[in-house]
């Protein structure tokens, strides 16, 4: 009789369903997973060590590149950590702008997640739909910061610039004639807030479309229901946060429980799952997109009527205006000092966490009183989630591993740092 043995299979790092550079070593009994051993670190850039060698302001841009689909949320945790070390607080308008862009980021992230997740499981259309909506939100990113992805828009003490008064418009070209361009520019006539308001009016309809395609879809349910079940107690023990924790039925959201920025004044609900399986986590994220849409709406309303500074007036920390710098000797010195040496943060340590789209993104920062952080530790939500991949995939089929990676919303920029 032939001897039956387990065999080991290598999955990734160059596999489209590995969401980047995940290498999985799978020990399999036929098609059943006995053990999954993720090998990570293929995207390790030593962000934390790099941050130790740079003045505080110069590391903000690195934060975008951690979780490269939820850029501004990582920036938010970083600037909040520096702000609490310095003992300053951003002006109210900046807080609302940050809240609005955090939610825009959440929608951006969830859209990419639903697109990639559905594509992994076999639904091509979702990917195309999700990217169509992402385009509008990235235009909003571009309007405020000039960059579509890596914005570096949040700064210590506020945000870089106030919201723009106009949106960039399409120009006729050999691909788009006058008439096309006019149609494409219809929602770009007003300022950024008008553009976003138009988006928030359309977006719930889009989410309905996605739900029509997926929620009751038989194949989608067959692939997700009862896959990767995590009990609530176990989810806490494993360090799950964000939708992964809420999918298991625990109502825990830092925006509500430990509010920051302007979340105190926002009216929103926290969707939670019941069974803790992949399908529930899908439902939670879909509901979250609708809630984010509502929060953006509330921020738009507030930002329309309340004007004011978007940066603190302390020029040790924020750059003085260009005109001021050219006319005023003191501003000139401030500008020079800020961009050469930076500022020294008082000795101390701080842990600041935000509810990033994937879970709790935290920055633990130690300062020894210098102009550079002494130690920066970035707590990435995906790191804890991927660590549980072994436990979640045991006993499942090979194809389910792909669904579990999808449901965990893995991005290697933040896991490998």
């Amino acid at each position, binding site marked *: 009789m032939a001897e039956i043995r387990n065999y080991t299979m290598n999955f990734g790092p160059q596999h489209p369903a590995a969401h980047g550079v995940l290498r999985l070593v799978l020990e399999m009994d036929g098609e059943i997973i006995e053990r999954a051993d993720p090998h*990570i*670190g293929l995207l*390790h850039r*030593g962000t*934390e*060590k*790099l941050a130790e*060698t*740079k*003045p505080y302001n*110069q590391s903000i841009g690195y934060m975008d590149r951690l979780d490269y689909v939820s850029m501004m949320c990582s920036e938010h945790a970083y600037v909040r950590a520096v702000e*609490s*070390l310095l003992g300053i607080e951003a002006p109210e308008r900046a807080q609302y702008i940050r809240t609005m862009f955090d939610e825009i980021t959440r929608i951006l992230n969830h859209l990419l997640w639903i697109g990639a997740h559905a594509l992994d499981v076999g639904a091509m259309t979702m990917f195309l739909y999700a990217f169509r909506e992402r385009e509008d939100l990235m235009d909003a990113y571009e309007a405020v910061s000039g960059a579509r992805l890596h914005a570096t828009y949040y700064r210590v003490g506020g945000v870089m610039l106030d919201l723009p008064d106009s949106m960039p418009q399409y120009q006729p070209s050999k691909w788009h004639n006058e008439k096309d361009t006019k149609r494409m520019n219809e929602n770009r006539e007003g300022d950024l807030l008008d553009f976003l308001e138009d988006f928030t009016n359309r977006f719930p309809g889009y989410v309905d479309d996605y739900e029509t395609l997926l929620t009751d879809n038989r194949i989608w349910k067959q692939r997700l229901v009862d896959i990767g079940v995590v009990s609530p*107690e*176990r989810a*806490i*023990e*494993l*360090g*799950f*946060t964000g939708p992964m924790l809420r999918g298991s039925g*625990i109502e*825990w959201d830092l925006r509500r*429980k*430990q509010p920051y920025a302007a979340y105190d004044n926002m009216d929103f609900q926290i969707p939670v799952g019941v069974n803790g399986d992949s399908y529930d986590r899908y439902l939670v994220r879909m509901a979250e997109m609708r809630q984010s849409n509502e929060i953006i709406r509330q921020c738009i309303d507030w930002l329309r009527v309340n004007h004011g500074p978007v940066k603190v007036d302390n020029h*040790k920390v924020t750059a003085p205006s260009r005109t001021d710098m050219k006319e005023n000797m003191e501003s000139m010195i401030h500008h020079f*000092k800020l961009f*050469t*040496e*930076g500022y*020294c943060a*008082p*000795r*101390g*340590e*701080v*842990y600041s*966490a935000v509810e990033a789209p994937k879970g*709790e993104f*935290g920055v*633990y920062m*130690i300062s*020894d*009183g*210098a*102009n*550079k952080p*002494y*130690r920066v*530790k970035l*707590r990435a939500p995906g*790191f*804890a989630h*991927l*660590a*549980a991949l072994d*436990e979640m995939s045991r006993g499942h089929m090979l194809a389910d591993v792909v669904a579990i990676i999808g449901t965990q919303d893995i991005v290697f920029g933040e896991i*490998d*740092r």
Partner: protein
Amino acid sequence: MKDLLDRVVQVLGDKLVDSTISLGELSIEVTPDKIVAACESLSSHDDLAFTQLTDLCGVDYSAYGAEKPGFHWRKPRYAVVYHLLSVKHNQRIRVKSFINGDMPKIDSVVGIWAGADWFEREAFDLFGIIFDGHPDLRRILTDYGFIGHPFRKDFPISGHVEMRYDPEQKRVIYQPVSIEPRILVPRVIREDGFGG
């Protein structure tokens, strides 16, 4: 915050070495030989219920305050820092434990929080801290066959070796780094209230 500290003092008793409340956060220090017992009571005691380990990381204090004249770091070189979260009471706490030696060693907390597994592997990889009792202490972030612990302060930012394809030997080889390290902005510590 104050009554959380009172509860912690009550529960931990003599395991607690030091505690500070600063910037709205509570940090406590525990001796390394009592870390598992302390964590056990922090997580299981009903009044504290720190059931989630949010983060665990190593810190190398060897260059702490080095730019400040006359300042000297007196505590042991390494620290392991645990950030705990109580979902039940909505509270956070930071636990620190200082350890020394070229092969610093501390007991693993994987038995208390399953999520500590990878965090301890990371601290081992980056700082060379050995977690006694960890089931699978392998490197996690650095390359296969990497030598050294890159986040220690005596490890240069550009590393020791670089990798390239050698067309003659027709394989990837390692060689000493060719990058000249440069410092664009020097590290300085200014006295309080510098510049007004």
